[in-house]
């Protein structure tokens, strides 16, 4: 019901929206909850376990009941809090956890069976028979469980993430937060003020308070105007600071587009990482419920939320309102409602000595013991002076006191402390370095004191940063104390709810204690209290108070469960913003990319690089046809392949040679200028790190190549070795991977092709600078195919031109481009290793290169490589050829023929396989126990996954041109 003249929604801007298919009207500035209440809609959801009818309970982000699905285009977002969701024209929301409809929900039958469905029901019931679990119990539970549903489609909406930095982050824009921000702003600090609501002001928007004799809202407007105008202040509305992390880093979720109909390119949410020199937590406090019988009916709400709906939205949540409280604060709700013309039937105050001076009946020392109303509250029963009184009422505002929102102070393992006078937990000072707590969050409850505290705490925080702070004037406001008598539950025979979202009652908590789950952490997990979307914001303190009572321990001794980020739910899409599809990882393209794509080459990812898999020709249906042709082409004519992805590191200095001797197992100081040598690099633990060729361009100038996969790894390793072990050495290096586009030209016609470009008579493993017109290129005579081979490198700007030019020349000679598939076949035929073989658990000994560890010098990893056990009795690199040339697979395991196929008999595994068109059958590279001594023997190859079980002949890993005659040409 809307109240004329109240609230700050825009009455001139009506907004149409739909809930469960019915169209309603609200106003701009409404939340879904306020608009539904204005339309008299009280039933908005069903509870998790018992499917009890539920209505809006709060007016904030802590809402446990009014969780709905919002449908917007292709988006379907479950568990949206109706108290947070602002309405917009065309908003479509749906209740959840009910079937077939909200009013007639079949699973409400659970409520009738509630005496069996208490804490631990699932644990006890679905234990046996064991085989029922997977087929029967789990699907059954899955169907019944969960709140809301997803669309089942990819979330293709935009999300954003961003970084922000400030001197002072102020969390919460209520009275304390606004004063903190104002103090910091005037001190010239770089300030961010973040608040989770659409409008800043916190409870000042919801209360009828006065500041300096004016309505508090006017003061808020003035302060915000000053802050908006200050160049050193950023206001972040709709932004919830969700977590406090190391080093002054805070996580925050901004709802960017959720209050609007979806529009192109507008992010739904933005996840901020805010780095703050210091921070002020002014998150305020949250009102808690009291557990009494039937306290979960629609129409039973927190007393302060009634005030919020009235003052902020101009909505009366009921026509005949009753208040049930244990403190003074709830009186204001009654007064505001009466002033607005709403009937307040009674105030039921649990305190025997409370004042009775109000304009409505006040019952002191009384407590509510029962409620009626199937889909919404119709009446209550309360105990008063030993008798029971019944009242007809459609709305009950409850206040069990206020809990300071200490959450962020606990995110780094801090625990809040019990304050008996406030009957609440308050933050422990210094629990998060640099985070200062102000206002109600610190247990300062009067408005006047909050204003002063906010300014004072901000000044203290700024002093830490070395700012000189002139204290600002604190406006005058009510400084009345907060009187409370703890009341956690009204003991009764039936169910009194603590956790509304997860349907946990006082009875469940007592049962947990009785069954031995007496620690608060155990009770939580046994009853699921605090594990719903509100994460116990509405129930943790009440539940532990009941547990304290059940176990006879005090509340302080019982303690709280661990508070963890996030403070309120954060969508994974926001945290992972930008990481979907192309944003997952950078794409690295070679200069030949478009030329390869033009030729129809499918791309294959090699690390971040995109490399052509093969170059299909007309008539070729499978990749194998193209691959076989490309292999034959390289073996018979000439092929061109872009090998720019290999890491290239330029190394210079008087100690460059000495440095290479330190990082490589073999010697590079003896390498003549103009020559290239293959090198093997070890990790500190003696296993192979990488291999590659290094060329000596000049006396003090080398260029090292790494594998594509390990380029970054090798760079990091070289930096470590240089910085940790080589102080004073004259050696400098830098990656030139991106500087040079490099192409392999391989095949019996390779030299013919190269000779058409430049005159250079290079010996095998030679290198030289050559001129291609005005461009100085580097030419290397190296081969990864086993054929006569060159690699030619030009500055990357010329890469595409040279690639296209080389292809034209190769095609003239009967050759052409070859891709990764053919490259792989060529190297397997030749027994060349890649990171399929040197996968991290491999030693030089395993790959038959133990002799490459020079005896004449030390090198990184040498001592570790020579350890006993690494030089004998290991699996060694071998070649495999299956009998009958049947197909084999990488990943298959090897066994002695006749041995049972079980782990204990495992003798090795296959790392690489290919079909070799050159040799007319499958080839494999494998690691086999004592493999080098077993050439000619048969082994059994088993791949359970692909159903392969056959015999292979063990051979030398080099299948093709063992002597290397072709290579050397």
């Amino acid at each position: 019901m809307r109240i004329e003249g109240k609230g700050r929604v825009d009455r001139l801007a009506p907004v149409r929206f739909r809930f469960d298919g019915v169209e309603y009207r609200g106003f701009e500035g409404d939340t879904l909850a306020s608009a539904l209440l204005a339309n008299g809609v009280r039933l908005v959801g069903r509870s998790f376990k018992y499917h009890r009818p539920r209505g809006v309970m709060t007016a904030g982000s802590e809402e446990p009941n009014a969780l709905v699905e919002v449908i917007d285009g292709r988006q379907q977002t479950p568990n949206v809090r109706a108290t947070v969701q602002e309405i917009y024209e065309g908003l479509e929301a749906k209740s959840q956890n009910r079937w077939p409809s909200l009013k007639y929900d079949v699973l409400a039958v659970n409520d009738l069976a509630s005496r069996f469905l208490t804490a631990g029901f699932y644990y006890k019931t679905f234990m046996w028979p064991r085989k029922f679990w997977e087929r029967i119990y789990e699907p059954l539970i899955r169907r019944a469980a969960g709140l809301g549903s997803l669309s089942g489609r990819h979330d293709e909406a935009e999300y954003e993430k961003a970084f922000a930095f400030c001197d002072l982050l102020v969390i919460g824009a209520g009275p304390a937060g606004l004063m903190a921000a104002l103090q910091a702003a005037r001190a010239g600090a770089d300030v961010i003020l973040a608040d989770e609501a659409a409008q800043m002001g916190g409870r000042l928007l919801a209360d009828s308070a006065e500041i300096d004799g004016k309505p508090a809202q006017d003061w808020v407007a003035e302060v915000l105007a000053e802050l908006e105008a200050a160049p050193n202040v950023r206001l972040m509305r709709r932004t919830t600071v969700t977590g406090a992390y190391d080093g002054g880093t805070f996580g925050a979720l901004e709802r960017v587009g959720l209050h609007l109909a979806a529009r192109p390119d507008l992010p739904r949410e933005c996840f901020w990482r805010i780095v703050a020199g210091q921070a002020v937590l002014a998150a305020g406090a949250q009102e808690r419920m009291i557990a009494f019988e039937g306290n979960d009916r629609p129409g039973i709400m927190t007393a302060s939320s009634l005030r919020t709906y009235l003052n902020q939205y101009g909505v009366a949540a009921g026509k005949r309102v009753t208040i049930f409280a244990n403190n003074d604060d709830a009186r204001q709700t009654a007064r505001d409602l009466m002033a607005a013309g709403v009937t307040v039937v009674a105030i039921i105050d649990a305190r025997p000595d409370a004042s009775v001076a109000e304009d409505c009946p006040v019952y002191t020392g009384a407590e509510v013991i029962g409620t009626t109303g199937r889909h919404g509250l119709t009446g209550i029963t309360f105990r008063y002076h030993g008798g029971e009184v019944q009242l007809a009422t459609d709305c009950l505002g409850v206040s069990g006191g206020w809990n300071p929102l200490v959450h962020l102070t606990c995110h780094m393992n801090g625990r809040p402390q019990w304050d008996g006078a406030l009957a609440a937990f308050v933050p422990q000072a210094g629990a998060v370095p640099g985070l200062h707590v102000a206002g109600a969050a610190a247990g300062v409850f009067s408005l006047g004191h909050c204003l002063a505290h906010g300014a004072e705490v901000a000044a203290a925080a700024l002093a830490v940063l070395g700012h000189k702070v002139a204290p600002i004037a604190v406006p005058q406001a009510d400084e009345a104390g907060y009187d409370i008598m703890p009341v956690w539950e009204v003991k009764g025979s039936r169910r009194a709810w603590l956790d509304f979202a997860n349907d946990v009652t006082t009875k469940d908590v007592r049962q947990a204690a009785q069954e031995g789950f007496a620690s608060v952490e155990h009770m939580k997990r046994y009853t699921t209290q605090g594990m719903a979307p509100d994460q116990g914001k509405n129930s943790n303190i009440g539940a532990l108070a009941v547990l304290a009572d059940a176990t006879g321990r005090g509340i302080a001794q019982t303690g709280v469960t661990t508070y963890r980020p996030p403070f309120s739910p954060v969508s994974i899409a926001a945290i992972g913003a930008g990481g979907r599809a192309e944003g997952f990882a950078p794409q690295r393209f070679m200069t030949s990319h478009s030329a390869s794509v033009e030729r129809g080459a499918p791309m294959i990812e090699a690390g971040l690089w995109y490399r052509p898999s093969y170059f299909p020709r007309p008539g070729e249906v499978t990749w194998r046809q193209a691959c076989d042709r490309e292999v034959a082409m390289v073996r018979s004519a000439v092929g061109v392949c872009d090998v720019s992805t290999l890491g290239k590191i330029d190394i210079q200095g008087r100690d460059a040679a000495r440095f290479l001797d330190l990082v490589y197992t073999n010697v590079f100081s003896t390498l003549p200028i103009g020559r290239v040598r293959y090198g093997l690099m070890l990790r500190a633990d003696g296993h192979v790190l990488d291999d590659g060729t290094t060329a000596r361009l000049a006396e003090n100038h080398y260029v090292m190549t790494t594998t594509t996969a390990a380029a970054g790894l090798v760079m990091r390793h070289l930096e470590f070795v240089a910085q940790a072990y080589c102080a004073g050495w004259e050696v400098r290096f830098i990656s030139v991977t991106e500087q040079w586009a490099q192409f392999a030209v391989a095949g019996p016609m390779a030299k013919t092709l190269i000779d058409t470009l430049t005159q250079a008579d290079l010996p095998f493993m030679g290198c030289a600078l050559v001129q291609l017109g005005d461009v100085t290129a580097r030419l290397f005579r190296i081969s990864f195919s086993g054929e006569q081979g060159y690699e030619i490198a030009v500055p990357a700007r010329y890469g595409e031109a040279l690639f296209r030019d080389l292809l034209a020349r190769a095609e003239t000679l009967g050759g052409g481009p070859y891709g990764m598939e053919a490259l792989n076949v060529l190297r397997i035929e030749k027994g060349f290793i890649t990171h399929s073989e040197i996968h991290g658990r491999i030693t030089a000994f395993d790959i038959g290169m133990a002799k490459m560890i020079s005896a004449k010098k030390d090198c990184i990893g040498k001592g570790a490589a020579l350890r006993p056990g690494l030089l004998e009795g290991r699996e060694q690199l071998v070649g495999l050829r299956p009998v009958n040339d049947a197909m084999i697979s990488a990943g298959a395991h090897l066994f002695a023929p006749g041995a049972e196929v079980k782990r204990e008999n495992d003798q090795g595994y296959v790392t690489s396989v290919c079909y070799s068109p050159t040799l007319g059958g499958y080839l494999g590279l494998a690691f086999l126990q004592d493999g080098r001594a077993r050439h000619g023997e048969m082994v059994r190859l088993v791949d359970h996954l692909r159903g392969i079980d056959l015999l292979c002949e063990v051979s030398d890993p080099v299948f093709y041109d063992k002597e290397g005659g072709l290579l050397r040409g």
Partner: protein
Amino acid sequence: MVNLIAKSPLWGQAPLVSAGVTLAEVDLGQVTSIAPFDMAVPGFPAPNTVVADGAARLVWTGRGQAFLIGGPVGDWAEVAAVTDQSDGWAGLSLLGAGAVDVLARLVPVDLRRLAVGDCARTQLGHMAVIVIAVAGGFELLVFRSMAQTAWHELATVIKMRGARLAC
């Protein structure tokens, strides 16, 4: 005789003008890595700064390393390891009032603190980047092979900024 055609990393990419920023590829000219053998050599920029070296700029790019952008190597070859990097990097310029705001989506460093003459070696999304503050915005150097991704990521956040501004 071969005459090879040169192509810039983002060859053919038109500038993007939107949401208060202009994103464009820039030709950095000659880029040379200067890594002095003695790090205390005079004229070498302090960390995170750019010094003028004649008509060129000497931009600090890491421990004991700076890039000489837009000029000849001169005497550096006598005291430093000198490596051509002209083709290894793509140059982007992001100018306009929204430049800091756009980069706040991708770069985890407070770029408001960078004045002309400052630079930072950090990351742009998952990519290594050299950020150089210039009049009215920034120059960004990313690995040549990642130029398309850098453009795509910047264009995406510019698009979202535009949508935010339209609200």
